[in-house]
């Protein structure tokens, strides 16, 4: 079984898994028993993230991103990661700057100068799938089909630097774009609430949370709150992800910091401005040393680098709660 096939078309590499291979992984390795999957961020990354893995996440660096998990990946010095970068703002910079990531499927590759310069210097390879194309690839992976069609990408240069193809639609005879299914090795999802078995709730919009959970070999959920399973059964419309798609549950309050968690805490703009200003390797190293390597885990980071007072203030500034429940 070739779980992690990397294919190439011309200069373009792309990750592809035959649906049958993914299905067999699901059959043999995903647990449908509602056991506790609670562990620390360190344990989750140790167990479920390997060198060379393809990683996706939801939502963005600024809103509900899995920042605690990304910092843990850097702390554990994973190598040669491939990022499916839908809204990658600072994660890409940090993961490339820390030497963890070598390939990025774009997406939206913002912002700050660091990542742009890394691309220009050839320190990271990029492929252009566009946001819609990546979301569609993950939907294909989630639906167990090898591809899905769309009517975009056509006519653009993205088709030359991705493995999207044009085929003849069997019903109209016209050209349609197809993209190959994507089954990431790892999906990181930071959520508002989860239970120990992995049932999870996101409040607000998402990119492709359920799609990514279905499509990924390993799913790590980090959650602001751990709640009882019974709460999910009382309100099934609020469930975003059912437990049997999930491999690990990490209780990570302030797990999206320095981004915002809607209705829980606001973005720390001072910290984000510092991230935006990381334009040299020297500054990058200093940032990583201070915020990642010099602290042993997320909790120590919160205690020593953020602090209760700032967390209190950020919580207080999250004044919009309507709809997030």
């Amino acid at each position: 079984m070739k779980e992690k096939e990397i294919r190439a078309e011309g200069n373009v590499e792309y990750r592809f898994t035959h649906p049958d291979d993914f299905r067999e992984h699901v059959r043999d390795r995903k647990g449908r028993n509602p056991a506790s999957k609670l562990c620390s961020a360190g344990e989750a990354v140790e167990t479920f993230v390997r060198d060379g893995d393809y990683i996706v996440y939801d939502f963005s660096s600024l809103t509900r991103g899995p920042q605690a998990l990304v910092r843990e990946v850097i702390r554990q010095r994973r190598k040669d990661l491939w990022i499916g970068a839908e809204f990658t703002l600072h994660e890409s910079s940090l993961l490339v700057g820390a030497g963890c990531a070598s390939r990025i499927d774009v997406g939206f590759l913002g912002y700050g100068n660091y990542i742009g310069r890394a691309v220009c210097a050839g320190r990271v390879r990029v492929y252009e799938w566009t946001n819609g194309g990546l979301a569609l690839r993950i939907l294909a992976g989630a639906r167990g089909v090898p591809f899905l069609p769309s009517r975009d990408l056509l006519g653009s240069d993205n088709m030359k630097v991705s493995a999207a193809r044009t085929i003849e639609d069997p019903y109209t005879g016209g050209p349609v774009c197809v993209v190959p299914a994507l089954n990431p090795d790892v999906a990181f999802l930071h959520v508002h609430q989860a239970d120990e078995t992995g049932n999870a709730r996101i409040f607000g919009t998402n990119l492709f949370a359920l799609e990514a959970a279905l499509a990924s070999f390993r799913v790590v959920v980090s959650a602001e709150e751990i709640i009882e399973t019974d709460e999910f059964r009382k309100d099934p419309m609020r469930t975003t992800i059912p437990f049997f798609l999930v491999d690990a549950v990490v209780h990570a309050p302030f797990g999206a910091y320095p981004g915002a968690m809607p209705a829980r805490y606001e973005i720390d703009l001072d910290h984000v401005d510092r991230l935006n200003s990381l334009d040299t390797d020297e500054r990058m190293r200093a940032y990583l040393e201070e915020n990642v390597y010099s602290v042993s885990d997320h909790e120590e980071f919160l205690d020593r680098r953020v602090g209760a007072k700032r967390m209190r203030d950020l919580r207080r500034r999250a004044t919009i709660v309507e709809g997030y429940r």
Partner: protein
Amino acid sequence: MPRKVEFTDTEFMIVQGARLIEDGKTLFVGWGIPQVVAMLAQRLYVPNVTQLFEFGAVGPRPVLPFVRGTMGGPQNTYRSLQWLNMNWAFSFSAAGYMDYGMLGAAQVDPYGNINSTCLGGTFEKPERRFAGSGGGNQVASHCWKTIIIMKHEGRRFVPKLDFLTSPGYLDGPGAREKAGLPRGTGPYRVVTSKGLFGFDGESRRMTLLSVLRGIPVREVLDGMAFRPLLADPVGEADPPTEEELRVLREEIDPGRFIIRGERML
């Protein structure tokens, strides 16, 4: 030594089905009898099975007693873990998350192919018309192990179906994969009111595994229009226990909408 108890053919069929499911697995539940099988199984044997209904109820804990004629209503979708829709439900099965699927059938052939569409005549003007696939085709195509549950009646076991609604092993070994169906899937058991069948690992042909204790193998075979393979030896299935019958009759279906049938033993 167990006392002899009276039960119906339907009760035996349901009980056999309920004994097949593993705990901590997922079960795609078809309309009708499979609903009752799932209830009995979860109540007695597999508390941690996760049921899925095709219209998007994930992990429901149906209210007992069973409410007839309303699979999608609040009673049957009670206390679900998640409420979604049909395209999501079939994504779960297509991506490999469903261990078991359970379906009824009007006809079944030696390769476990299912007809639930029509009998006789032509497709356009059949002699009898049934409900059709519903989501049965998807369940039989996607789930790892499909369990077919049906009364043991001669006209139902046929060498050739009048219509192939949901795929078994099609015309033999490798045929599913060749057709493009997901690898490693297929019919797992046929549960009837008289016995239990599996499928031979090589020939993919239906194989009689066991019969209800006290019923001669010959009687089971006489009720079929083709001859299945026979396990060596053909086993004996225990009749329903008193506890199984009590739960079925008192907790699940006191109105006897489902469990009525021919009396046995």
